Structures are given as structure tokens and as C-alpha cells.
């Protein structure tokens, strides 16, 4: 019953901008979903997911033009409608205007209200260029990955960029997280929900970050997901951890997972602002952390340069002082290649 109400609402909005010349038989109130005459209006009564392709056809057939009136009818306020109209008009290429309405309708079908949709498009104007078919496919993919109703809408409204990413990249990231990092499907869904920006990250960087936290910091997958590790940049994580490590406040667990001291929790390291981290967790002055960040940035730059030049040498270059081979035990707990610990602690 609820779906029918929604369908009716959308239908009403859609029908409003159909040019007056076309007349649609007002039969839909009495039709049932199962045995319908193949008329346009009845097709519109079918399940919500079928609505979009039929709307598409509807739009194509009627070649609806974007206008302030149509936007207002969709439910936007005057101010929002004006803004949308302006930004679409400014977009290059005439295609934007044609597809915008269908794109907007997909977003509405998702369950977002007009204010949210407006904010979304403001945040991410690239959405205008996404075809509605693609948009729908991507939303379906996210649903299959475990982003259920509620969290899906929240994720999309907070990070609309996720819908501009092609399905292949999302698939490769998810595959990487599941197969190489050994996250469970539920954990992957949580990662997508909490840190959707992970789909845009470079896979090498992602791998390095995971390996760093898993081996060097000795943190397992469950904790990584709980404290939203993938929201933070690699440099941030490395800098804070190295500061603690060099101060002697964080130890890499040995092969049995033991340390001499109690390591601070990953949550307590990452999810605090710099001031609290420096004062409470590291027990240092802000000046020290500032200088340390600069020193570390320089160290990394030089390491990158060194690694770049080592790769260009042949195998008889033995001076790879940076890396030590990992224990065999750690290979058992990991899917594939192990992370190499650095010599300097």
C-alpha cells in the first residue's frame, strides 16, 4: 500500500509536466498491478524498480524540457529550483539538461527528500553528468554489497561522489578488501558505510595502509573497522604511530602478539584531534609534534627517492638496508605478500 502511495505521488509529479496536448486516461486508480492493459499509465503502477525505465521512455517520448516549473513540481522550493536550474544551465554540453530530470527522479526513488537532493547536487555537481541508468545500476550494486535502506541513503547524502564512481572500481576495491585484506562481507559493508571515500583511493596506497596497520601496529580487522581506519590518510596514521613508537609508547607485537607495554588503542590514536593526541596520548608538547611532522615528511621523501633509484639498479645492489624479511608465521595469517618491517624502530 505504501509503495502505491509513493508511486502515485511520483506519477502525479511526473504527469504534471507533460505537455497538455497529451491526454492520459485516468484509469490508474482502479487498475490492479497483475493484469494490466498495456497502457502507459498502468505500466507506471508496476514495482518501483521498473518505474525508472518506463519513466525514461515516457520522457523520451515526450522530450520534456527542464524548466523551473518542472523543478518546482518535483518538490523543490523556489530558491532550490533556481539554483539547480542555474547550475545545470552553466554545465557544458546540452546533454545535461535532458538527463537531469531522470537523474533527479532516480534520487527521489531512492527515498531522498528534495532538500537533501539539492544539497547533494550542490556538493557534487558531477552527478548531473551521470546517466540515470548508470546511477540506478550503481545504487543496486551498493545494495548488493550490503548497504541496506537507511545506511544507503545516509551514505549517499553524506558522500554523493560515491555514485560518480564506475562500478568496476567499486568492485575492485571490494574484491581487494575481501580477498587480500580478509575482511568479512559485513565488515566491507561497514567500511563502505563509514568511509565511502575508500572507493576513490588508489589500491596500492590502500594496500600499504592496511599492511602498515596490520603488521607494524598489530591491529586486526575488527578493530580497524570499528575505529573507521579508512577515513584517515596514510600519512596521518603513519605520523601519529611513528611518533608514539619513537617515544617508546607503542610497540609492534612480536610473532605471538605480545608486547612489553600496553599499546594505546587505535581508536584513541586516530579519532582524537591533534591537540588531545599530543597532550594525552603522546604526552608531548605541540612544538615537538610539529617539528616531528616536518622531519618525518622529509624522511619519507628521501626514502621514496632512494627506493625509486634502487629499483633502477640491478640485483647486485645489496644496500637495501631499509627492509628485513618477515616471519613465516605472519604469512600464515595473511592472504598473500607480507609487509616488510623497517629496520629503524
Amino acid at each position: 500500500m505504501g509503495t502505491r502511495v509513493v508511486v502515485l505521488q511520483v506519477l502525479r509529479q511526473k504527469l504534471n509536466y507533460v505537455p497538455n496536448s497529451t491526454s492520459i486516461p485516468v484509469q490508474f486508480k482502479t487498475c490492479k498491478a497483475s493484469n494490466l492493459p498495456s497502457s502507459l499509465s498502468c505500466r507506471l503502477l508496476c514495482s518501483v524498480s521498473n518505474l525508472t525505465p518506463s519513466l525514461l521512455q515516457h520522457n523520451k517520448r515526450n522530450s520534456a524540457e527542464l524548466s523551473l516549473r518542472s523543478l518546482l513540481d518535483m518538490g523543490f522550493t523556489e530558491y532550490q529550483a533556481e539554483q539547480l536550474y542555474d547550475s545545470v544551465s552553466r554545465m557544458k554540453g546540452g546533454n545535461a539538461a535532458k538527463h537531469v530530470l531522470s537523474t533527479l527522479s532516480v534520487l527521489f526513488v531512492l527515498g531522498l527528500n528534495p532538500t537533501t537532493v539539492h544539497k547533494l547536487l550542490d556538493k557534487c555537481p558531477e552527478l548531473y553528468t551521470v546517466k540515470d541508468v548508470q546511477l540506478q545500476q550503481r545504487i543496486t550494486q551498493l545494495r548488493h554489497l550490503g548497504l541496506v535502506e537507511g545506511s544507503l541513503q545516509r551514505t549517499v547524502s553524506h558522500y554523493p561522489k560515491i555514485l560518480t564512481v564506475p562500478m568496476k572500481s567499486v568492485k575492485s576495491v571490494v574484491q581487494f578488501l575481501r580477498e587480500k585484506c580478509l575482511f568479512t562481507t559485513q565488515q566491507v559493508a561497514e567500511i563502505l558505510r563509514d568511509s565511502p571515500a575508500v572507493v576513490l583511493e588508489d589500491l596500492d596506497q590502500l594496500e600499504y595502509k592496511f599492511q602498515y596497520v596490520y603488521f607494524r601496529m598489530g591491529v586486526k580487522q575488527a578493530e580497524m573497522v570499528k575505529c573507521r581506519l579508512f577515513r584517515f590518510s596514510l600519512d596521518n596514521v603513519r605520523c601519529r604511530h611513528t611518533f608514539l613508537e619513537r617515544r617508546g609508547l607503542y610497540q609492534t607485537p612480536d610473532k605471538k602478539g605480545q608486547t612489553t607495554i600496553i599499546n594505546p588503542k587505535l581508536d584513541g590514536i586516530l579519532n582524537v584531534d591533534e591537540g588531545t593526541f599530543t597532550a594525552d596520548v603522546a604526552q608531548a608538547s605541540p612544538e615537538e609534534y610539529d617539528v616531528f611532522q616536518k622531519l618525518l615528511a622529509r624522511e619519507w621523501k628521501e626514502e621514496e627517492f632512494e627506493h625509486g633509484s634502487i629499483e633502477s639498479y640491478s640485483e647486485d645492489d645489496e644496500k637495501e638496508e631499509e627492509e628485513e624479511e618477515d616471519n613465516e608465521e605472519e604469512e600464515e595469517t595473511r592472504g598473500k605478500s607480507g609487509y616488510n618491517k623497517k629496520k629503524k624502530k
Partner: protein
Amino acid sequence: MGLFLDTSRVILSRVKDLRALTSKRHRVKGKWAATHPKQPPTRMALQHFDATYSAQLGALWPSIRVALLSERKYGALLNHFSHNLDVEELQAQGCKDFISNGEGKLHTASKRKLHDNLLLRSAPSPLRLSPNIRCLVFPRGDITRFRPARPDKFGLLSYYLLDAASILPCLALDVQESHTVLDLCAAPGGKALVLLQTQSVRFLCANDLSVSRTSRLKRVLQSYVPKALLTDDKLRITSFDGTIWGEIERNAFDRVLVDVPCTTDRHSLMEDDNNIFSRSRVGERRSLPQLQAELLLAGILATCPGGDVLYSTCTLSANQNQAVVQQAVQLAEEQHGIQLQVISLCPLAQMFSNTFHFAPNLHLGEMVIPHLAANFGPIYLCKLRRLT
């Protein structure tokens, strides 16, 4: 029962792969480690320091630890014998001479005292420093590196890069006009070069046990000091064992600098080469305090009565610092009847407190501790005056 156990043991020892299937009660560990796992010397050093210094330094240790493990900060000792535009360039980048800064600080402080003091008698600075030494450093928190010095038209380099805190022992030594100076462990030559910069030394004797390091010392001096000042009547470089100096020359020098070999904390944590914490050098490391006390005693014997001895190391360990000084003073009194007075270096620490971090509450001598914003040191110094 015994037969059953024997057979089961035989079966189990052959079927190692079924480890998971045998109950814990019957599992046998076949291979036992014969040696400790191999660890690089730097890691051994870090473990050793964590154990000793967390107790000795307490809450200061984490800050010192992170500074020791990060890149050190250098100072540029200016060479008075060379003329180059490098110096102006450095100053344009923001370097300042920390010694004149310190002296300036002292002047304003004493002027204020004068002002407050109702009596016209001014309080002279109780500590004299060696003159003419200038060393540029980048400001606090600035991590810019120095470029290597370039030779001028005479082939002399314009500045020498060293840990700025290493200059403090030479300053504290207070070399005055026409003094004879002995540097008992001179190589690789930084401190000897600083002493020559004072241009007050009548005769410098630079000694080091190792011949290879002595030749390096020669090279350093030749790159910085014109040949005219390196003649035999002004400079003597020797390769004797410093501990026997007491038998060679007694009561001969006005000033003696004893910069003993130590565990060189910073070097031991960062470099594996030539590291005193490597397994082959355990005996050498354990006998360091003994060697250091002998060297200091020899230095004391070589000083004229009324002369000064300065003991310095580059380690934080109280075992190699205060303990050694106390032992040497005691030995000098017991074995040779020599009375020594400890000269407080507190004014020096106050003068340079803007540039360096000094360890608080040291009952004997002063120590520069590393800190990320001022990553100099560690340097320990203690000044003794020979009374008899």
C-alpha cells in the same frame, strides 16, 4: 604402559605433520633454539637504553628517545682562517651565532642586576669562556640542513659542520692567551679545530689512540688551518695510549680536554657500522667506565697545578659521566694526593638555555639533552680545577 609411551613417541616423532591431530599431552618439541635470535646492534642499543634511561631520566626519556631516533641538528663552526661568501649566505637564511646570543643574554642579565643592586659593585661573570669562537645554528624548530662548505681561493673551507653542543666543552675549557693545551682523545678533530679557532693557544697537543683516526685529524686540520699555524712548535699530533700519559708528562699543560670514548648514544642507535653494541664488542663496552676513569686521571696528572681539566662525553649514562668523575677525583686524591675543585658550569647552562636543553638537577656537571626542536647532544661536561 612404558612400552606404549615409547612406541607412541616413536610414531609421533616420525609423523610430524600430524601435530594438529595428536593431543597436547603427547606432542614433542623436536628443535630447541641454541642461540638468541640475531638482532642488529642498533636494536640492542635501543633495548639497553630503554632499560637504563627510563629509570635514570624518568619522564624526560620519551622526548629524548624520539629526538635520538630522528635526524640530528648540526651547527656550522666558522673558520676564522678563511674568507668566503658562504657565511653571508648562511646568515641570510636565518642562521645566528648562538655564542654571541648567549653572551648578549648574559650582558642584559648582569645589567639588570647592576640596576637593581644598590651598591655600585658589579657582579662579574664567574665563568670565563674561550674567546673568538663562532658557530651558526638555525633557529629553534627549523630543520634546514647546512650545505657542505666550499673551499676558498687558498683551499681552506669556510665552516666545519658538527653538533653545536660539542662546542660547549671547548668554551667551558676557557683557553686564554698563550695557554698550552692537551686534547687527550682528539680524533676526529672537531674539538681540536675549535680550540685552534680561539687563536689563543700557544701549543696544542692532540692525541688519539688510533692511528687511522689520527690521520683523519691531520687531514681535518689541514683543510681548515693555514700551514703556518700547524708547525711543530705550535702543534703536536701523537698516537699514544692516553692512559699512560701520567707517566710521560706530568704537570705540563695549562688546560686539558678529556673527551673520552663512550657508548656514543646517538651513533649507536642509528648506525650499525662500528657500533659498540655489536656482540663482538661486549667486553669493550663493559670496561668503558674503567677506561674513562683512567683517561681522566691521566689528564689530571698532565695538568699543572692551578690548571683546568674538562671531562666530556656524548652519552646520557650516569655510569659513564658522574660516576667516572667521582672515581677519578677520588683516585687522584688517594693515589697521588691531588686536590681537585669542581667548577660549576651552571652559568654556562643559563647562558645557552635558549639554544640547548639542559638536564635539570644534575648534581655534578651539566648535560645537554636532545629535544626535537633543538636536536643537539647528548653531551655531558664537567670542569675540574687542580688545586695542588
